[in-house]
């Protein structure tokens, strides 16, 4: 079709521009369709999502038979289940899903053989199922690895009743509860790297020896740590005492590794945390003493001596240690210690 001529194109321009303007003005008076997430929505977005929404996965361990169908069928193996032989029989010691890598395709849910009745749901659900949780923004990447079994605990596999085949499906909590709990735990387990370091530096600005080793402060700290060091001795406790800056001044690639080395006794020199300076040495020394069963008072005294031996009055370490060759850490270095 021939394009309009000299004057024709002027008429066309005016007509179509006027038409366009009338449409945008009509649009101007319509109600906006956007929603101001996250704080000005009528209901929390989670509740407005359809029931089949594929958000975070969750596993109801009470009804999980540890058949590992989901782990086997996942195309990118983001599910890891460890089953161990213990004196009380086959037990699941680990059920992790790395939701940072999962692509939410739903193949695991389809391959799960066990059906359950979730609270407030008409259709039967599976043991591993999607929830409508989706808010997973985090600065520490390991937070997205949901650990349905806490390290150290164990969950016995569920044995479906044989004879009552047609019996009522086993009950299961409402979808989302388990996911929210596990996500909260994951957030606690992996404090954002920079927040912890910042809080630590801000909280106790004055780190000179007189203040750190003042009798009542030292005693209070010893009692506080004694309460934490009950029988078990997770390296995370030691890691918290360090400066968490992964600066490798102690020779270990990350604070986590140095903490694990101290916890396992591989590295007895507990005063190498330069940024942590006197405060870190004191806390770690207290922990080590308490771990050996010393009473808070004797632990406080030993810690005070150790700190005075290795730190000047203002808390800075005496010997600027030459960095020894990094010792092959027991596990590959990752961000924050475990």
């Amino acid at each position: 079709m021939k394009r309009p001529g000299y004057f024709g194109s002027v008429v066309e321009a005016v007509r179509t521009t006027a038409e366009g303007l009338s449409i945008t003005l009509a649009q101007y008076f319509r109600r906006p369709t956007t929603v101001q997430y996250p704080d000005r929505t009528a209901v929390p977005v989670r509740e407005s999502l359809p029931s089949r929404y594929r958000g975070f996965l969750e596993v109801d361990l009470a009804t999980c038979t540890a058949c590992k169908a989901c782990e086997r069928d996942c195309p990118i193996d983001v599910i890891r289940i460890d089953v161990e032989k213990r004196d009380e029989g086959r037990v699941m010691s680990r059920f992790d899903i790395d939701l940072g890598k999962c692509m939410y395709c739903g193949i695991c849910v389809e391959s799960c053989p066990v059906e359950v009745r979730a609270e407030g749901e008409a259709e039967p659900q599976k043991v591993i199922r999607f929830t409508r949780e989706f808010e997973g923004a985090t600065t520490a990447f390991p937070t997205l690895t949901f650990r349905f079994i806490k390290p150290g605990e164990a969950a016995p596999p569920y044995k479906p009743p044989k004879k009552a085949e047609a019996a009522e499906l086993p009950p299961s909590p409402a979808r989302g509860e388990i996911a929210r709990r596990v996500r909260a735990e994951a957030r606690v387990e992996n404090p954002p790297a920079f927040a912890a370091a910042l809080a630590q530096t801000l909280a106790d600005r004055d780190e000179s020896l007189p203040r750190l080793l003042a009798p009542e402060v030292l005693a209070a700290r010893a009692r506080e740590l004694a309460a934490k060091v009950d029988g078990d001795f997770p390296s995370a406790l030691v890691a918290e005492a360090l400066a968490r800056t992964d600066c490798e001044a102690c020779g270990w690639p990350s604070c986590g590794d140095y903490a694990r080395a101290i916890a396992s006794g591989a590295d007895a020199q507990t005063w190498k945390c330069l940024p942590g300076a006197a405060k870190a040495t004191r806390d770690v020394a207290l922990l080590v003493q308490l771990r050996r069963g010393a009473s808070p008072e004797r632990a406080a005294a030993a810690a005070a001596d150790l700190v005075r031996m290795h730190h000047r009055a203002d808390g800075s370490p005496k010997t600027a240690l030459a960095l020894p060759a990094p010792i092959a850490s027991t596990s590959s270095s990752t961000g924050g210690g475990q």
Partner: protein
Amino acid sequence: MSEIVIDRGDGDEVVLNMGPQHPSTHGVIRFVIRTDGEIMKEAIPDVGYLHRAIEHIAEKCTYEGFMPYTDRVDYVCAMTANHAWALAVEKLGALPVPERAEYLRVITDELNRISSHAIALGAMAMDLGATTPFMLILREREFVNELIEELCGARLTYNYHRVGGVGWDLPAGWRDKVLRWCDHFVPVIDEYQRLIAENALFVRRLANMAVITAEEAVGYGLVGPNLRASGVDFDVRRDLPYSVYPKLKFEVPVGRGAMGTVGDAWDRYAVRIDEWRQSVALVRQALDLVAGTPPEFLSTPKKLKPTGEAFARVEAARGQMSCYVVGDGGANAYRARFRTGSFNAMQIIRAKSRGLMVADLVALIASLDVVAPEIDR
């Protein structure tokens, strides 16, 4: 991906590097433009930045396990990519598919075609400077996303089709919502046509620009809307019918050169707008017919270890997507090959870019509706 070393041309030639991060290359594609400032001597595409080796992954996971990866072959129109893989594997293993599943496949394909065209048309308007049409049409796309989200739980990478059927049946009340949306959407198409398609400025930018003749289109392997805009009346849904398309009545829009010559950028734009209307009609017909089908929507194959080779074609949003599968009796595909619409459309850009202006290159890319995932896979 190749470091294209350009010998310094004559004096006033400037070598511009457009991409791979550039607002109007629709994904990670790079163009090396030799221009004198406005008129282009040539725009050399350089692809491979989004190559995830999807075909290689197909050899590493099972036939069913590979389905979510087909979403990533063309994440703007994932449904038809699912459908291509399902068809190819079903043809390879000669697997039955229940009739209800076929209708569900057609419904979701057409809905996804509408939302994919929404991005194509909206992005093209935005590339030429009109941001309002883009926002308005994304509002319609949001409705489609919500409908499909209610059906299968995902908004972009659905993983809805399965080998031997589909993953979920229609939820309650979904059919009325879709019909309500269709009634709302048809007048919106007319408004969109008046707002931008017939706008004098828009037409002057696209009419008679980068005209692709029928021979060139076929020679360069253009498919889908790009091919039909050049006047070739071919649509896989009608001419190599699959699924239940023979039972549905629809016309195939072909470029008529309404604002310039047949096969210019405006025709490629107008053909997609007409396809919107056809897709809405298809969705309506399929929704009526699906009610009368038996409830079974998935027949999962017992043992899926086929041998042999099969070749399936699907009319995706960017044209015919062909999927060639070779099985050697194992649980994984021995070789999988996806030939997509954007892959062919990219080859014609270098030939067509000679003599265009830089602003026209942007319009040409948008009119061919090229997306990076499909080119590199």
